[in-house]
């Protein structure tokens, strides 16, 4: 039925899209948006909604940590004394620096500096790997001392603190009774869960950064379309904020008592 109005309409539409040359608007403006500005606002809004779900996700872990810390307070204090504040501080500084280089990367993309953007992304990538490297050192200390929850978990450092001279000379912890010492396993479960989920976010971020470095070298983000870099920046800063709280809660608040 070549004469049917439906067919005629279809033909019109397809010839129109063939003619459509993207001459009237930038090629990155999707057709369901009125303007580039509307597209940027909508994407930014969506990214924030995703980050809110992430706040709720980590929020659950933080709440569990606070409740168990109240329940098994002596065990949590003794557990946190096993963490090395110097490594923790170094990692905080590394992550803050990586947030700064990422923010500078967003600025480079916005002002269309291709080389600057590539440099910033590479620095962010390296600092991210540095963070994970330091985390690996900390984790391996826990593995050596059998402080990873599970069958091989050891209560030695908690029922007999003097047997762990490095920690003992700094804190002079009193021995915990065996039933309370058992609950240090809860502390380390939450420690590995929270820092592990954070590290997973870092690993995902570093993978995306690798992809972005590749694309940025080809000039993908320095021709006016910066949404991807901007939204990745939001993700990276969010991961930084989670670490700021993890550092305070896991490393800092139980040093006395």
């Amino acid at each position, binding site marked *: 039925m070549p004469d049917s109005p439906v067919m005629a309409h279809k033909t019109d539409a397809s010839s129109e899209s063939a003619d459509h040359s993207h001459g009237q608007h930038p090629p990155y403006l999707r057709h369901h948006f009125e303007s580039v500005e509307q597209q940027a606002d909508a994407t930014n809004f969506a990214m924030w909604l995703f980050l809110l779900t992430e*706040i709720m996700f980590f929020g659950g872990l933080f709440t569990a940590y606070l409740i168990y810390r109240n329940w098994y307070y002596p065990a949590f204090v003794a557990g946190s004394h096993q963490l090395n504040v110097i490594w923790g501080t170094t990692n905080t500084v590394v992550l*803050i620096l990586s947030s700064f280089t990422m923010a500078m990367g967003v600025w480079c993309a916005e002002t269309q500096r291709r080389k600057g953007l590539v440099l910033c992304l590479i620095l962010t990538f390296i600092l991210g790997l540095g963070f994970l490297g330091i985390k690996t050192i900390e984790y391996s200390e826990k593995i050596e001392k059998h402080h990873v929850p599970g069958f091989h978990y050891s209560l030695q450092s908690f029922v007999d603190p003097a047997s762990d001279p490095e920690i003992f000379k700094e804190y002079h912890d009193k021995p915990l009774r065996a039933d309370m010492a058992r609950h240090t396993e809860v502390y380390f479960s939450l420690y590995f869960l929270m820092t592990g989920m954070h590290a997973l976010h870092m690993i995902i971020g570093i993978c995306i950064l690798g992809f972005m470095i590749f694309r940025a070298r080809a000039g993908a983000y320095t021709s006016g379309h910066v949404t991807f870099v901007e939204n990745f920046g939001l993700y990276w800063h969010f991961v930084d904020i989670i670490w700021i709280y993890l550092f305070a809660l896991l490393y*800092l608040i139980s040093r*006395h008592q």
Partner: protein
Amino acid sequence: MSEPNEQAHNGHQVVGPAVYVAILFSLLVGTGLTVWASFLELGPWNPIIALAIATTKAMLVVLFFMHVKYSTKLTKLTVFAGIFMFLVLISMTLSDYISRAWGSW
């Protein structure tokens, strides 16, 4: 160097390096302060100070690195609503745990 209120092509404000350097510096000072405070014996104030400094640092990151200060009202409302909701959830959960079975945990 571009000014913080420079307009990009799509009408969004571009935040410049000067602001980022200032925030980086404040965050590093905050980190130093919070580590220093953790070495002092302040009793119940230790966690309060640590969390207050962490929250200040987080606010600096959200407002400047994450551009919320320069964002649309919709973004500001979204961020505020999310944090507010989180605070409602955490404070109601904790107040439940703190107020039941006094002293038996």
